[in-house]
């Protein structure tokens, strides 16, 4: 008996240590990034254009570029993803065809991000001749998050009680009226949360925009959706791996990393809190 409970104590301690190790390591990484980057951040760093071959000045163009790319991706992907989810939850019956769609969604979610980059390069940049641009990058990123958006919106729609639908239908509403006026409003917080999570994910993606949207150095802000842009995650990579004067480039890379982390964590925290809030009410 004693040996059995001793064994339990030993095993549980090991599990506890594993969890501590996991959280400790991840927080240590965040700590190091903030420690090296926080000092770089100033008002000028956030609002000025880079100077002298990225060795001085700020990251404003990259910040703006990331905002454009993320907005473009969400504008393209959110309507498509939500409507796809509506079809899958409200219209689809079990059939081979629907199974095909589900297989499509699942496998699209597993495609490596750099392969999306190849697709974007061949289709948007070359074939459709959008060039290396905000448009090409946004469309590529939109496809990257599409499966995540579909799944999350589906979950939100499925959580709407069936009685809502039958009550609305019983009152004589058509199926689409029911969806538009009853189901989607009820699922709205969940759908919103999934879109916010999509934004957080897309803001940090680097590989899909590597050959579709980004440039290392430009002083000016993009003038149209056919311009190439700087972007926060790409800038971090470019500064540490291609920089010609590391003593200037690396601090800027850490500063950019702090800004990116702050944005991504804030967006995700927002989504998580929103979900907790709506679950309660």
């Amino acid at each position, binding site marked *: 008996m004693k040996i*059995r409970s001793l*064994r*339990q104590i030993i*095993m*549980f301690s*090991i*599990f506890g240590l*594993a*969890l501590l*190790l996991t*959280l400790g*390591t*991840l927080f240590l*990484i965040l700590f*190091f*990034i903030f420690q090296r980057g926080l000092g770089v951040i100033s008002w000028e760093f956030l609002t000025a254009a880079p100077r002298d071959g990225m060795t001085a000045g700020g990251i404003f163009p990259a910040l703006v570029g990331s905002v454009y790319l993320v907005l473009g991706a969400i504008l393209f992907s959110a*309507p498509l993803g939500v*409507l*796809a989810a509506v*079809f899958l939850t409200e*219209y689809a019956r079990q059939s081979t065809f629907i199974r095909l*769609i589900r*297989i*499509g*969604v699942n*496998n*699209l979610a*597993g*495609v*490596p*991000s*750099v392969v999306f*980059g*190849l*697709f974007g*390069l061949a*289709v948007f940049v*070359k074939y459709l001749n959008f060039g290396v641009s905000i448009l090409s990058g946004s469309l590529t990123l939109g496809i990257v998050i*599409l499966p995540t958006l579909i799944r999350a919106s589906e979950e939100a729609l499925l959580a709407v009680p069936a009685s809502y639908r039958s009550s609305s239908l019983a009152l004589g509403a*058509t*199926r*689409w009226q029911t969806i538009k006026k009853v189901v989607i409003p009820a699922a709205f917080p969940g759908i919103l949360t999934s879109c916010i999570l999509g934004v957080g994910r897309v803001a*940090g993606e*680097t*590989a899909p925009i590597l*050959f579709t949207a980004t440039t290392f150095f430009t002083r000016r802000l993009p003038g149209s959706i056919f311009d190439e842009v700087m972007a926060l*995650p790409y800038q*971090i*990579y470019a500064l*540490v*791996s291609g920089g010609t004067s590391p003593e200037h480039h*690396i601090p800027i*890379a*850490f500063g950019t*990393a702090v800004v*990116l*982390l702050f944005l*991504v964590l804030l967006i*995700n925290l927002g989504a*998580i809190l929103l979900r907790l809030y709506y679950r309660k009410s």
Partner: protein
Amino acid sequence: MSKGYLKEQFIKYLLFFCALSSVLFLAGIIWVLFREGLPVFSHVSLLEFISGRDWYPYWHPPDFGILPLISASLVVTTGAMVIAVPIGLFSAIFIAFILPLKLKKIVKPITELLASIPSVIFGLFGMQILAPVLRDLFNLPSGFNALNAMIMLGIMALPTIISLSEDALTAVPEPYREASLALGSTRWEAISKVIIPAALSGIATAVILGLGRAIGETMVVLMVAGGAAVMPTDIFRAVKPMTATIAAEMGETSVGSPHYHSLFGIGIVLFFITLLFNIIADYFTQKFQSMVGGES
């Protein structure tokens, strides 16, 4: 009446088309990969491409053997999983069954939040902070090697593996555990002899999804693995996984050149490896659902 009916039908088909878009994009990706990748086989045979040990795309004539790249991907990913699976699974067990409910409500969202850290951040850490440490610790000329990539990828995969296996563990019906406890087992015996075996296929899904994601991860391996296209004979050597090769070399090649096509060829191999992982994961998911009954 008939106008309303037409509208309803129109909307139904519009929604159907949106749902179909994922399938179309997936088909588009396959089509593009083959269209742009197949021309490489007029320079090199499929067998030479996959089993060739020399990757010298800039030579004249170039060598397009991607075995070093495939091996590097597999070695780095396996190493990452060796680190991440036990630690992740242990953490998941702790969160699922041992952590008091109050703390669980805090730790779970924190894990989710940590899963959202962009990969380029892990790359930056591996490059600037872990690499010098590894170099000094093992007395190496450089800290950019397979080991660095394994550690960073492993850390990065942890939150995902924890979330997915925690879901699998808590999906096991409560009566399983209660029955075991009622028969006089300790909590650990209930976990190790009843719950873990019941959740095994769910845990397998978590591991394989983690594996698929790790093998497709680009930025971390691009930044820390060292970028030398050689066979990964030991973990202190620099290597160049498939994803890193595509990302690093696509910018330096001209569209339509044999090198350009060979990078899409690597894309084909990468795509089918991840597809295989997805199919296996799917198999385990269905097995798990039929085992615990109900949805997970």
